[in-house]
């Protein structure tokens, strides 16, 4: 196995593993948001707002993984 294919595997693994974790995080947050919105429909607006904030914070980790993957790929 030469170094180029190792680099490709490393970049792919960085994005894939972090993406999996971020997907679990956003899934859990959305599940709870849907549950509480169903229980209290009048609070749906503020729940949506908090959900968007939390999802963006979780999603940031996946985005960092993407940037790190690009750095691994392009700075050899």
């Amino acid at each position, binding site marked *: 196995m030469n170094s180029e294919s190792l680099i490709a595997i490393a970049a792919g693994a960085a994005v894939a593993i972090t993406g999996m974790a971020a997907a679990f995080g956003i899934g859990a947050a959305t599940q709870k948001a849907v549950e509480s919105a169903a229980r209290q429909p009048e609070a749906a607006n503020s729940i949506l707002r908090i959900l*968007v904030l939390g999802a963006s914070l979780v999603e*940031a980790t996946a985005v*960092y993984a*993407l*940037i790190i993957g*690009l750095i691994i790929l392009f700075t050899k």
Partner: protein
Amino acid sequence: MEFGKELVQQISSHEIFSFSLFGINIPVTDTVIVMWIIMAFLAVFSIIFTRRLKLIPEGRQNIVETIVEFINNFTKDTVGHHWEHFAPYIGTIFIFLIISNCISVFAVIPKGEELYRLTHVEFFRNLPDFSIRPPTKDVNTTMCMAVMSIIMVVYAGIRFKGFPGWIKSFVEPIPVVLPMKITEYLIRILSLSFRLFGNILGAFIIMEIVYFLMPAVIPAGLSIYFDLFDGVLQAFIFVFLTSIYIAEAVE
């Protein structure tokens, strides 16, 4: 492999021309030119739509009042006290970010070289290598926006707490948190800028791959999600986080 090179070509910013000022060579990239186009558009839009305002709105004044009212309500909800000081800044970066994130829908306009390949008109060949790409896919732009937002947060803290109160807020619950509070400002800059940059760049790369693999019909549907929805959502998240930081500084 050929596509990889083309993708790198697409996501890096190109120098269109450069000028020297006081002996320093300043390159002007296509990011800057797209930003100038957006700025000119917004300036002309603002001037045209705010001329001859009337007490009872009609026609185009209705559009402007809807936008301004939305921004005012948004700032009032998130910032709370003293919202009227921050509504102009929040609104400006909101509108600017929405337009600069969504401008990648114009990426289908062909470049000069492609037009030459299609039509064989010599004029198109000599055009500079320029195509409209979102300026927020360049990390320099988003870093500037994040630094501006943090300057605004510091200004809010000093303006409404006074300078001694602002210094005191660094050691507020216990003095041990001082290093954390200082690094928090740096981390906010990094997280604000990389979140916006990474999201727009990711969407841009996906759209480029889709344009390469399936050039017809399918990009139209995906473009609605990746260009328009994601662009508006990321702009919203950026101003939302900025206003939360401001609210925290004002309290």
